[in-house]
């Protein structure tokens, strides 16, 4: 063990952003599910209420039409308090992402570590990576510090697609912002469409968390978590 080479893998801005965002996303998911409990139906278009046709009902998943308390913040029904949690951590999430983006452009984390190369998108390459994952081989022996292709794609999807979509669909539900920036709600096809996309993005982020945690455990939870706390990571032999 002692002879394994350690490398400095995650810089301070990355580590700080990771944990701030991890806490924010968990609180936002929990409080968001409580907010959904206030009206457990989702629609497409500008409007949508009890007399309109929803495409999704919480009642299809949970009896009684409410997400159970062990998944929500707070754990008992309270729309007002859930909104307080949600709107507080929405600010934390958005400004942390902005700061991380600026820092990662300056320290070249994005350009160096997250740039997806064309050859990584080829079907043969992707198939090989899926096979390597199934065999629990996550690192290129030539360059163990680098993210593998699937890892890059999932991080790029979260950082550049899912989190910005969550923020902008959230803003598109604000009646104040709707008046100021009508184009934002138009981009998503109406306020109820923005609400639906917000929910779908939240579920994709929840899916990412599950897969991410599973892979952290499979890759060696102690080494992976330590590297995200101290920055130092032991490369596999």
């Amino acid at each position: 063990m002692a002879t394994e080479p350690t490398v400095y893998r995650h810089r301070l801005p990355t580590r700080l952003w990771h944990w701030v965002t991890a806490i924010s996303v968990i609180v936002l998911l929990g409080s968001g599910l409580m907010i959904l409990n206030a009206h457990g139906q989702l629609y497409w278009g500008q409007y949508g209420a009890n007399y309109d046709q929803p495409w999704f009902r919480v009642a299809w998943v949970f009896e009684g039409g409410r997400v159970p308390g062990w998944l929500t913040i707070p754990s008992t029904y309270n729309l007002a308090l859930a909104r307080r949690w949600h709107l507080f951590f929405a600010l934390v999430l958005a400004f942390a992402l902005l700061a991380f983006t600026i820092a990662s452009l300056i320290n070249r984390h994005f350009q160096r570590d997250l740039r997806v190369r064309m050859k990584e998108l080829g079907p043969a390459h992707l198939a090989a990576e899926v096979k390597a994952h199934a065999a629990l081989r996550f690192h290129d022996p030539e360059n163990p510090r680098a993210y593998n292709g699937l890892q890059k794609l999932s991080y790029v999807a979260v950082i550049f697609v899912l989190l910005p979509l969550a923020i902008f669909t959230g803003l598109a539900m604000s009646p104040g912002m709707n008046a100021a920036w009508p184009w934002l709600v138009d981009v998503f096809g109406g306020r109820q469409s923005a609400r639906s996309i917000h929910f779908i993005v939240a579920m994709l982020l929840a899916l990412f968390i599950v897969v991410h945690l599973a892979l952290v455990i499979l890759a060696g939870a102690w080494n992976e978590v330590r590297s995200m706390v101290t920055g130092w990571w032991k490369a596999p032999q």
Partner: protein
Amino acid sequence: MSLITRRSLLIAGAGGLVAGCDGIGNSEAGRDLLFKAEAVHRSLQRAITDRNALARQFTEAEMSPRFRANGSIFPTDPAYRASMRGNFADWRLRVDGLVARPLSLSLADIRALPQRAQITRHDCVEGWSAIGKWHGPKLSTLLDLAGMKDSARFLVFHCADTLYGRPYYESIDLIDAFHPQTILAWAMNNRTLPVEHGAPLRLRVERQLGYKHAKYLMRIEAVASIGAIHGGKGGLWEDIADYEWYAGI
């Protein structure tokens, strides 16, 4: 450490975090911190957006086929019920407080003022939206008639309905009070305002959530501060459940 133990540790950790949130949400200090976000959102919105921006207006073809009524839908106050049975002939809207000329207006007076019609989307804090047409004078027309005093900072809307045994009320600041789409609606979807939607008169404050749109209006009071009115937080829902006073979020 085995895989299972690590995983259960992670789950216990996440569960602990979610449970800890209840503790924070019930503590004075936790609430103080969380509740600060409202002022940040309000300040940011007002800093980066046009204060006079208009809410989107729709066409009749884009209206909700049926507009859901919510909150109070049939006030039980005997005086209101008697007035309703008389088709609100004896109903008066009082405009008073920090004004130079207090007003007492009948429905006919209100209908005789310059009118505005707008088809807008109504967003409930619960998450649903409905599009409807509203018709009535601008609030600013009444405020100009009454002559606001310089010390006035907020408009308080006193209502005939009660919820949880308390009178409904709401309040807005002068930015929204003088916004051209802030109207006092006596008609909805080309008909007289139905009782379930707030007859005879309701507020429309189009850039905020539904609970700000006070129904069953009786009195509009100009005040310097909302701190001394009812629970002091500027509205019934704000007082009893800690909803945001600024509901443009």
